[in-house]
């Protein structure tokens, strides 16, 4: 929870993103403080996912800067961004269909494993030690998210709710500083939503991971998020605590569809 003025982990300054003629994001700036759960909400097509992709280095904004841990971040490729400790889950699931649950979670450890090609060839000594050590870390995460009984099932055959949880496990395996969740509860029933919210809070408290959460369900946003950014048609509409944002007239109009 955020009480006093905390160190800012990431700051996004007047970002402008265009796809050909279509303006996806129109000079938006906001910050994410360390250890907080920052929600990004807004109607469909407001630019939420695009903003996430900008942070992720998947889209390169035409203008604007991204500051991470106090330094200005040069324009990076997605895998470089991942190295700096930013992980994410996807709106519509992007699991590796050809692998089982445990293998998917192990992929989260790629950045942490370094044993060179020679050792990999022999898979002996340091290489296997590294594999075992990271396998144990994955098992702890599997235990944490209570998906032990689907450890060996191929992810393709898992129900929707469980696939979302495996994706969260994979992101956690990267032990990120900043975790980007793209509508983690889309398409879930009430019980699954409760479980996922509990896990998100646990992750925030147990591992101290800062979380940027895109979510439609206002109920979830209200009780999970410390601060909320509201986007609409690619512009920043409001930024503040859930209560402030809820009372903000511009936000209510945007959601109730006053013609813009």
């Amino acid at each position, binding site marked *: 929870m955020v009480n006093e003025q905390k160190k800012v982990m990431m700051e996004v300054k007047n970002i402008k993103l265009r796809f050909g003629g279509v303006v996806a994001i129109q000079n938006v700036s906001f910050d994410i403080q360390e250890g907080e759960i920052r929600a990004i909400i807004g109607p469909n097509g407001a630019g939420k996912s695009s903003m996430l992709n900008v942070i992720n280095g998947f889209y390169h904004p035409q203008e604007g800067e991204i500051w991470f841990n106090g330094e200005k971040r040069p324009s990076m490729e997605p*895998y470089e961004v991942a190295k700096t400790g930013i992980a994410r889950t996807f709106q519509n699931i992007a699991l*590796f*269909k050809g692998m089982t649950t445990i293998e998917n979670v192990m*992929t989260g450890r790629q950045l942490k494993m370094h044993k060179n090609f020679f050792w*990999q*060839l*022999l898979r002996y000594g340091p290489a*296997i030690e590294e594999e075992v050590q990271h396998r144990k870390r994955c098992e702890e995460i599997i235990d944490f998210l209570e998906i032990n009984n689907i450890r060996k099932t191929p992810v393709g055959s898992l129900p929707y709710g469980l696939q979302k949880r495996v994706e969260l496990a994979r992101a956690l395996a990267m032990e990120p500083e900043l975790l980007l969740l793209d509508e983690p509860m889309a398409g879930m029933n009430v019980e699954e939503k409760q479980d996922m919210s509990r896990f998100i809070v646990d992750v925030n408290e147990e591992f101290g991971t800062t979380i940027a959460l895109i979510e439609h369900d206002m109920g979830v946003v209200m009780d999970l998020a410390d601060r909320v950014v509201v986007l609409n048609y690619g512009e920043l509409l409001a930024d503040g605590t859930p209560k402030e944002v809820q009372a903000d007239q511009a936000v209510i109009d945007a959601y109730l569809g006053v013609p813009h």
Partner: protein
Amino acid sequence: MYFRETGQFKSKYKEELAAFPIFEDKIGIAIAAIIAFILIPLFGLPGLSYEFTISAVMIPVVIFTITTLGLNILLGFAGQISLGTAAFMGVGAYSCYKIMTIFPDLNALICVVLSGVVTAFVGTIFGLPSLRIKGFYLMVATLAAQFFLEWAFIRIPWLYNYNISGAIEVPYKEMFGIVLTGAKSEPLTRYFVCLAFLVVLTWLASNVIRGRIGRSWMMIRDMDIAAELIGVRPLTAKLSAFAFSSFYIGISGALMVFFWLGAAEVESFDINHSFTYLFMVIIGGLGSITGSYFGAILVWVVPVILKEYGKSVFGIDAFIMENFTTILLGVVMLTILIVEPHGLARIWQIAKQKLRLWPFPY
């Protein structure tokens, strides 16, 4: 039915990560090894002459398993399609030939390995387009490699030391007093050399695939966007796949010329061979080492044996048998694609799973 897994529990992660965790699988592998290393060299295959079995069936199938393994790493594990396999085998063969002529006293096996390394470089270069394009377009790019290299094998005399016939002959090589290559070499020794290569390369491949690098390939294959966002650098993953796969294909090319054919013209590296190797991988099963074995055995051994039986038993001449086997290959390929797109490996996996659950269905 065959499996008795009661009491086989894992108390260390290492056991869990082993190549063959279940005891019964270890028995299966041991039986296969006995057949390959002892039974066939001693008795050959039933109904076929011993000489024919070794030099016309076993040596090629072992070599083609290495090729299929290489292509499977590229296509099955890393998801990068390539129609240039035969050409890369050619690179392996010619580079081995050049190495042997430039360094005459170098041991034959080292030459083969070095030719693999050379092919790995060449393969990586031709793998560069995979960074920009994928899927179907990449296939056409590899076709460019295939035709360009075929052209190079004829048009660059340096490759075949300017001898008029344009083909490369195999020099006499021996190691520890055993004659390895050249006319006087025993088929059996050549068979064991190839088999040794296959075993070592399979072990290395299975290690790399189950490790960090193999996982990065599979990530790229399944969902390259997600892989990139998790920290896998597409460039390193794709090019390492091309390099590693070309290393295997280069070695198999060198082995084909120096330990089987005894000489090589360009035709043995043409586009049709590339298609056959592609068939081996697809029929065998993408993304599975055992699949590579099944594919090579089915696609190579069955036609050869059919031709042999056709000739000796039904007296049909080779030409008709040749066509019959091509049709048969096409038909088997189609059935596999329709019935089980993941190839024999998946059929084997399902059968194994059924046996493990016997007598219950789930």
